[in-house]
C-alpha cells in the first residue's frame, strides 16, 4: 500500500426524471462530494461507459477537476474493467444505484468481490485516519432505517456505497465545468470482458395495460354500518293483510312451527 491515500469516486450518467435530459446522477455526485471531503483535490473521478459529455460535465461543475473515462461498449464488463483500473486505490466510493439503465445497485458489491475487499453500503459520513503502521483506517457512519445510524470502523482498502441522503453540499460552478478536463484512458477493453458474468437479460418494450378505474364510494359511516348489519339478513315473512286476530294467529303459527311453544 502506498503511503499517500488514494481515493476514487465512480460516477455514472443520470437522467432528469421528467424530461429525460442527461445530467449528473445525484447519488454519484454525493459520493464524489464525500470523496472530495476525504481526499480533497487528490480524488480521482472515474467513469466507465459511454456516457455523453454533457452529463459528465455536470460532475466537473460539481467539483471534479479531471474525469477519467474508460470507454466501454454496450456489452463491456464495467466491473472487471474498473477492478483492473482501480487495483491500487485504497478507497473506492460509489453511489447506491444508477438513475437509469440496469440500475441494479450491484456494482459496489461486484466490484468489491472482484477486488476481494470489504464493502460498506449506505454510508453517510466517512473519515480516514492513519494507523500506527503504514495503513489507513476508515471510520464510517452508516444509514439505518427509522433515523438510526451505525458507526463502523474498517481498515482500508475498502469499497463504500454512499447513501443518497449523505449530508454533503453540492455546489455547481460553471467555471469549473469549463475548466475541467475529461480524459479518455485507453485501457484494453477486452481485458475484463467476461461474457459469462453478463446477466442473460432480454430487453423489450413494456406493454401498457389499461387500468380499470373504480369510482370511489362515498358513504357515511352510518350507511356502511347499516350495510354490514343488514347484508346478512335475508328478510322474513311479512304479514300485511288480515284482522288483528288473524295476525295473532300468524304469530302463534310461527312459534308453533319452530317449536318455540309447547301448546
Amino acid at each position, binding site marked *: 500500500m502506498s503511503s499517500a491515500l488514494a481515493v476514487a469516486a465512480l460516477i455514472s450518467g443520470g437522467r432528469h426524471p421528467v424530461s429525460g435530459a442527461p445530467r449528473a446522477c445525484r447519488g454519484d455526485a454525493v459520493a464524489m462530494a464525500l470523496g472530495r471531503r476525504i481526499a480533497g483535490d487528490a480524488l480521482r473521478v472515474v467513469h466507465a461507459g459511454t456516457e455523453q459529455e454533457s452529463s459528465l460535465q455536470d460532475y466537473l461543475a460539481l467539483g471534479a477537476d479531471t474525469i477519467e473515462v474508460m470507454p466501454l461498449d454496450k456489452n463491456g464488463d464495467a466491473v472487471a474493467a474498473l477492478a483492473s483500473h482501480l487495483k491500487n486505490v485504497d478507497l473506492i466510493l460509489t453511489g447506491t444505484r444508477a438513475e437509469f439503465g440496469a440500475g441494479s445497485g450491484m456494482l459496489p458489491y461486484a466490484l468489491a468481490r472482484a477486488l476481494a475487499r470489504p464493502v460498506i453500503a449506505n454510508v453517510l459520513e466517512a473519515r480516514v485516519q492513519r494507523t500506527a503502521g503504514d495503513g489507513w483506517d476508515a471510520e464510517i457512519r452508516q444509514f439505518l432505517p427509522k433515523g438510526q445510524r451505525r458507526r463502523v470502523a474498517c481498515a482500508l482498502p475498502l469499497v463504500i456505497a454512499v447513501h443518497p441522503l449523505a449530508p454533503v453540499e453540492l455546489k455547481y460552478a460553471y467555471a469549473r465545468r469549463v475548466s475541467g478536463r475529461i480524459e479518455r484512458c485507453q485501457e484494453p477493453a477486452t481485458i475484463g470482458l467476461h461474457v459469462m458474468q453478463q446477466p442473460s437479460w432480454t430487453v423489450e418494450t413494456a406493454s401498457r395495460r389499461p387500468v380499470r378505474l373504480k369510482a370511489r364510494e362515498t358513504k357515511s359511516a352510518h350507511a356502511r354500518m347499516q350495510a354490514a348489519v343488514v347484508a346478512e339478513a335475508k*328478510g*322474513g*315473512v311479512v304479514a300485511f293483510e288480515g284482522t288483528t286476530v288473524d295476525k295473532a294467529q*300468524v304469530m302463534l303459527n310461527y312459534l308453533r312451527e319452530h*317449536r*318455540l311453544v309447547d*301448546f
Partner: protein
Amino acid sequence: MNATTYFAIGISGAVQHLQGIKGCRHVIAINRDGGAPIVKRADLTVIGDAEELMQALITRVSQARNQGEVPEVER
C-alpha cells in the same frame, strides 16, 4: 343478546339495535311501518298497532292453552 326468540314490539331497527340482536335466532317484529329496517332482519313481521296485536296474541294464546289445542303443525 343471544336469545332464541326476540319480539321486537314497536322497534324500528336502528343500526345499533340490529347489531345488538345479531345473535338472536328468531326475530318476530310488530311494527306499523312496513319499510322499517327491522323488517329486513325479522323472520316474521306483522304490520299493525303493537298494543292491539299484543292484546290479540295474549287472548289467542290463553285461549289455545285453556282448550288444550293440538297444534296443526306436525311435531
